């Protein structure tokens, strides 16, 4: 089924919140998912897997403890949203030195944050994992020939640095997303956790009863 980008962003945000992220990170997840889908990278299934993998885990177990030589998570693998937000928050440090990360789950989700860094620095940024180099500018994402390699479930090391130039082929943009029914169902299930169960009381009072609506 064909989805609008607003729909997928809203679903991704709610699903991330449902899986335990705070609203600020849920918003980042929605925007990151949208950015990747706009560039034709099919990340809804990886998102569903990522949320399942990290379901209920504390943020502190998934985020860099501090901005050390190599960013790593106390819980083993970094959440790409937690690591990605740090990457865009600390973008200016790329002017001084490259950022190295240890193990990251679904590193494809780092790309939108590298792009945010590129935007704030006005420079191209390179992201390398498992021999794949992605370069991004404020408006473009470029990948080597096989963009299937982007959708790996995890990698052991990541290098982020300023790039002298963009390389690889630019990903064309699209305005619609196709989502497999089972993936949509999974994300919807996470999103469902953000909805309060209806009670008769809330049904009447929550939206305001008041005067007749049929006159």
């Amino acid at each position, binding site marked *: *089924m*064909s*989805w*609008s*980008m*607003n*729909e997928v962003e809203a679903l991704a945000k709610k699903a991330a919140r449902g899986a335990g992220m*705070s*609203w*600020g*990170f849920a*918003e*980042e997840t929605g*925007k990151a998912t949208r950015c990747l889908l706009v560039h034709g990278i099919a990340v809804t299934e990886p998102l569903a897997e990522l949320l399942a993998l990290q379901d209920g885990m504390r*943020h502190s177990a998934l*985020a*860099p403890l*501090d*901005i050390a030589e190599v960013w790593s998570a106390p819980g083993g693998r970094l959440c790409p949203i*937690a690591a990605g*937000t*740090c990457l*865009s*928050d*600390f*973008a*200016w440090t790329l002017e001084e030195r490259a950022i190295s990360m240890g193990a990251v789950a679904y590193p494809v989700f780092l790309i939108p944050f590298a792009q*945010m860094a590129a*935007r*704030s620095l006005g420079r191209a940024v390179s992201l390398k994992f498992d021999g794949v180099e992605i370069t991004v500018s404020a408006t473009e994402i470029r990948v080597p020939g096989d963009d299937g390699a982007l959708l790996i479930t995890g990698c052991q090391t990541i290098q982020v640095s300023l790039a002298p130039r963009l390389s690889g082929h630019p990903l064309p943009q699209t*305005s*619609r997303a196709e989502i497999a029914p089972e993936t949509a169902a999974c994300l919807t299930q996470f999103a*469902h956790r*953000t*909805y*309060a*169960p*209806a*009670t008769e*009381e*809330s*049904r009447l*009072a*929550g*939206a*305001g*009863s*008041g*005067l007749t*609506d*049929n*006159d």
Partner: protein
Amino acid sequence: MTLAVNPNAIAPRDPRVVMRLSRLGSFHQCRLSFMRVLLRRLKAEAWTFTRPEFEINARGVGHAVYTAHGPDRSYSLVAFAHDLPPEQRSDRVIATAWDATFTLYDGVPSAEDIERLRGNIPKQEAGRVTARELSVSRANRSVRLFDYVVETLAAGQQPDAGRVQDVGYLMRTTAVYGSGKLGAADREETANRPEFQAPFQIEMLSVYLTRAFVLDLVEHIAALRAPDTAVPMAPALRRKFGIGNSTGLGMAPFLMNHPMLLNNWIAAREEALARVRSLGSATPAQQALFARFLARARENAANWRSEHPVQQEAVASLRADLAKLDTHLSSHPLTGDMPWNALWLWAEGALSEEGQEQLLSLMLEPYGDLVDDLGQKTQANEAQCFAIDGAMTVARVRQLTEDVFGWVMSVDWTAPPAQARVWYVSEEKLEPRLGERAEEPIEPYEQPLCPGRDAARMLEDLRDAPDGPIAAFLLRYPQHRHIVRRVQIAERYPYSEIRDNTISATMMPIDLLRAKLAFFGAVHFDPRSDRWLRINMFRDAPFPLDLAHEDADDWTYPLTEEVHQ
């Protein structure tokens, strides 16, 4: 347009004055309202209108297509009319069937498109549309007027003008979805088209064409029922029908979820006020125009009906304010230096918020040349303001938070009334609702719609935080990410934040609805409780086929007898 450098230029009002809920809840439509922006464009660009299909039977069942042809593109309202059993009729979002359902199609639909839409549009949320559709909406008949008008016309009579005045519409829309909802085209797909750059132009066009459809529909049903006796509506009376709308909490979070957009709306309106206040003088023609609009606003206030006690009081203040304004002008004509500023400063001390905000709208009326360009500056590219500036210092974020959310420091957040409410989304209809924190188990589902409380929490943690980049603070306190973003947006967009507690025991959600609906251009706000209300849209506006030979922008206040003459 930009003003020549004026040493007396008045600055826009302080956000601390403007962004209070009670004031936002006192806004009126003005020249910058989205309906007016739309009709001015349709007129200026000489859009034409056709009705290529109208296949509706005597029971009122069938479909119709209304197409608007612009300089570069055409758009079609596809309307489906239904025979709804009265017991199923509800304006609430929990309804599953409606008297009429609509979509705005990007272009002119084929027969296959119509069939595809027939299978989906009548189902609304349970249906699915494509990128060719720009909106999805529905409407219900007014029980007080619809059948009465059909029967009267069928009998060869005209409906009673008083009854028409009291209700003001034949159908109420109960939701108008755009921006990618239900699979429709995203806003980003159309935002670069000149006709859709201003906000909500798709939705306003859809509603404008819906009004034309509904008037055609009653005349058509009357003619089918009584071909020998039925008459069409008299044109002057026809104009008196707007299209109603029933709006509830679904709309309330919008202003909080779109801070940059909110800023741009308010900033445009405040800039318009500042431009008029800064004028050195008013010509006799401008003074006369203002006086005429004041008379029409008084008639508008006299016609404003509401059964809600808070609104009744507000309308009573408005009527008294406008009378006071009339009296004031007779002793203080607009002939001195900076006459509008003098009038405004008087009003700040003499009128209620309802009256002040009405005066603001009236002061813009004589000055289309000076302010109408601002109507095109109300859109926002929100993607621009999403990224957090991690290099900003903790001290700067603290200072900004205290500037924007200074009011939160005087609230006792531990006292139950300060956090009495919870914004949540119900499982049942996936729509925003408002609950009582102490009485319902809904806190775990709280939506981030209480920026004041969240800012207060962040300020506590900021107090002892070492200075350095805010990125480091966020590493330690990731829960404040959402509010850091808002504070940084507010640095650049000073009207982005409401300076009031949106979860307090006394908060009135209808204030949020009114502000948004006033920007749409709605009139006759009629709250039905503290959390839903009815409005009227396009009442007295020329119909599409009349636009070519009528004033497109002189309809938002009723034409008084004096003006008729």
